[in-house]
């Protein structure tokens, strides 16, 4: 657990970067600091490992005041990942990763073989071990940065916009791998980003900071989307949040009806015998796509005939996925599958909307006006929040 106790940072030039911050980052969880540029995220993060000393207040690591621990010892127990990785150019990848264990006195052979294992864990081939940082792409360097921070198995990790310097596709990969890794490792992580989507995806709890170093709201992603504490947070969390909030509403029994199908390779039925759109499945009932019966009647169902635009809703998955399955389906019927991606049937849009309405969550609690408009964007949700005032 990391606890900020009334922490203020005033730089020598008078800038107050962090103002009376009280906050707890829970053990084994990812706490995300998010906010606009210059709001004090980096300053807050760096006060934890004392790269920056607070002007006032104290920061506690479990039950120890960090100011009582020698800085180098404190930092060796805290993994630290920065934006451009900051790898040592003169060291090979494996030696970069082994840095902290070597500082702690682990023998070289063991430190190196552990480092090799870590490289694999963060998704890098062992063949990279002997390369130098300059020979790696930005995304690869960032993976090494994460491996290096993990090398001494620190209970705490600090990450300052670790994925922001790579392209969106790689970023998504790195985020997914990071979450998978965290599932295994259960570190106490403080993660800084200015990207609210990244915060929502990664955070167990999100601390929204506003310029001047004030904590605007500390909440779970679902709560943040559903109940922004004030206009600043609402604005920062951004558009579509009513829709995105549905992503956190999981475990519902989706209504579904039997859906006529055609097997791949079979002959499509005549137009008069079926509805306009027909679902194609493979031999194991995995949905493949839709065919337009009018255009394909009598022809063999092949890959080329398929319309693949529709998404799938998994039974027990999120309402967002269910809604999206309906909206993206050319037939207007959302395809529902089980965990093994086998077809269960299809759901109608108004059935899913009904389910959203009955949802006891924040949207539902605001009454019919708020919930029914879930698909219509943010205006309804914002209005509801404004009526309620700060939660």
């Amino acid at each position, binding site marked *: 657990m990391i606890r900020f106790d009334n922490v203020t940072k005033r730089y020598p030039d008078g800038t107050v970067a962090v103002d009376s911050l009280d906050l707890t980052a829970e053990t084994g969880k990812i706490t995300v600091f998010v906010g606009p540029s210059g709001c004090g995220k980096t300053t807050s993060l760096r006060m934890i490992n004392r790269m920056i000393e607070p002007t006032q207040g104290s920061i506690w690591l479990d039950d120890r005041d960090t100011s009582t621990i020698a800085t180098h010892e404190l930092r060796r127990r805290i993994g*630290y990942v920065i934006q451009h*990785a900051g790898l040592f150019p*003169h060291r090979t990848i494996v030696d970069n990763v082994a840095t*902290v264990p070597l500082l702690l006195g682990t023998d070289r052979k063991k430190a*190196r073989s552990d480092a090799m294992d870590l490289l694999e864990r963060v998704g890098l081939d*062992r*063949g990279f071990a*002997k*390369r130098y940082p300059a020979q790696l792409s930005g995304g690869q360097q960032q993976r090494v940065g994460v491996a*290096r921070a993990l090398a001494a198995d620190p209970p705490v990790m600090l990450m300052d916009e670790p994925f922001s310097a790579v392209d969106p596709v790689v970023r998504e990969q790195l985020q997914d791998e990071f979450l998978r890794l965290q599932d295994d490792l259960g570190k106490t992580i403080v993660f800084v980003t200015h990207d609210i989507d990244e915060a929502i995806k990664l955070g167990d709890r999100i601390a929204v900071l506003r310029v001047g170093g004030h904590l605007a709201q500390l909440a779970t992603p679902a709560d943040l989307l559903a109940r922004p504490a004030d206009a600043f947070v609402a604005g920062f969390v951004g558009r579509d949040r009513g829709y995105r909030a549905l992503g956190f509403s999981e475990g519902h029994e989706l209504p579904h009806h039997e859906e006529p199908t055609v097997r791949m390779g079979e002959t499509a039925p005549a137009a008069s015998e079926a509805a306009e759109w027909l679902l194609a499945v493979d031999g194991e009932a995995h949905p493949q796509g839709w065919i337009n019966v009018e255009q394909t009647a009598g022809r063999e169902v092949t890959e080329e005939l398929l319309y693949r635009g529709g998404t799938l809703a998994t039974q027990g998955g999120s309402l967002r996925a269910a809604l999206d399955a309906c909206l993206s389906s050319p037939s207007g019927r959302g395809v529902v599958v089980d965990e093994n991606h086998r077809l269960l049937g299809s759901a109608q849009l108004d059935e899913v909307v009904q389910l959203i309405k009955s949802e006891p969550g924040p949207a539902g609690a605001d009454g019919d006006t708020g919930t029914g408009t879930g698909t219509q964007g943010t205006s309804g949700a914002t209005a509801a929040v404004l009526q309620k005032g700060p939660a």
Partner: protein
Amino acid sequence: MATGGPRMIGNVITWLNDPSHWRGTGTTDGIVTQLERHISYVGIALLIAMLIAVPLGLLIGHTGRGGSAVSLANAIRSIPSIGLLILLVVIISPHFHGRTQAGFIIPTEIVLMLLAVPPILAGTYAGVENVDPAVRDAAYGMGMKGGQVLLKVELPNSLPLVISGVRSAALQLIATATIASFVPLGGLGRFIYDGLAQRDFPQMIGGGVLVALLALLVDLLLAAIQRILVSPGVSGRFSKRADRRRGAAGEADSRVAAVDEAGVTV
């Protein structure tokens, strides 16, 4: 002079090819002996200069304080070497009597050392200062102490500039060490001054050629040392062998062994 050019080159080659000029005669020292002296004047001054300038440059770069010392050292370079040498000889040599040459050697070494310190100091300082701030930050962030950051991170990354400072100092010393022969010491300058005095131009030019050749050889040697000392990650000279090994998949375990053997990085 019209016919002097080609003929002079021939004469210089003849002078350089004469074995007695290399061995020396009963009364005069040969090229070999003077070369040794030249190298020793340069070597000693360079060594002392490195012992002073490298640690000082590292410290100034690391702390970011005392940058003015670097400019001050640079100002020293503009003092005329021969003038300073004569001044120091006048001050120092009266303290030595008898057969010792210390009264001349010490002033010469001081002058050479003063010439060598500024480029090495400036190179080292610039090298440390140019280390990527993110890299330095990461080093502290991982729990390195100041000294560890300096020796394990800043020094290896500044090495190319440190060594290039040493190389330019060495070149300058090899050229300037000829002034040792101005006060009556040896070195390759002997041939230049004697040749000039005796109007023996092949000897004078031959001496100059030897100085140039020595400078070339020493620079090549230092370049080779640079290649060995500077990490490929810093110089960008990634080995072809490592490239090939990288290309081949499925050798993971032999790679671990290879990594274990190659424990050279600082």
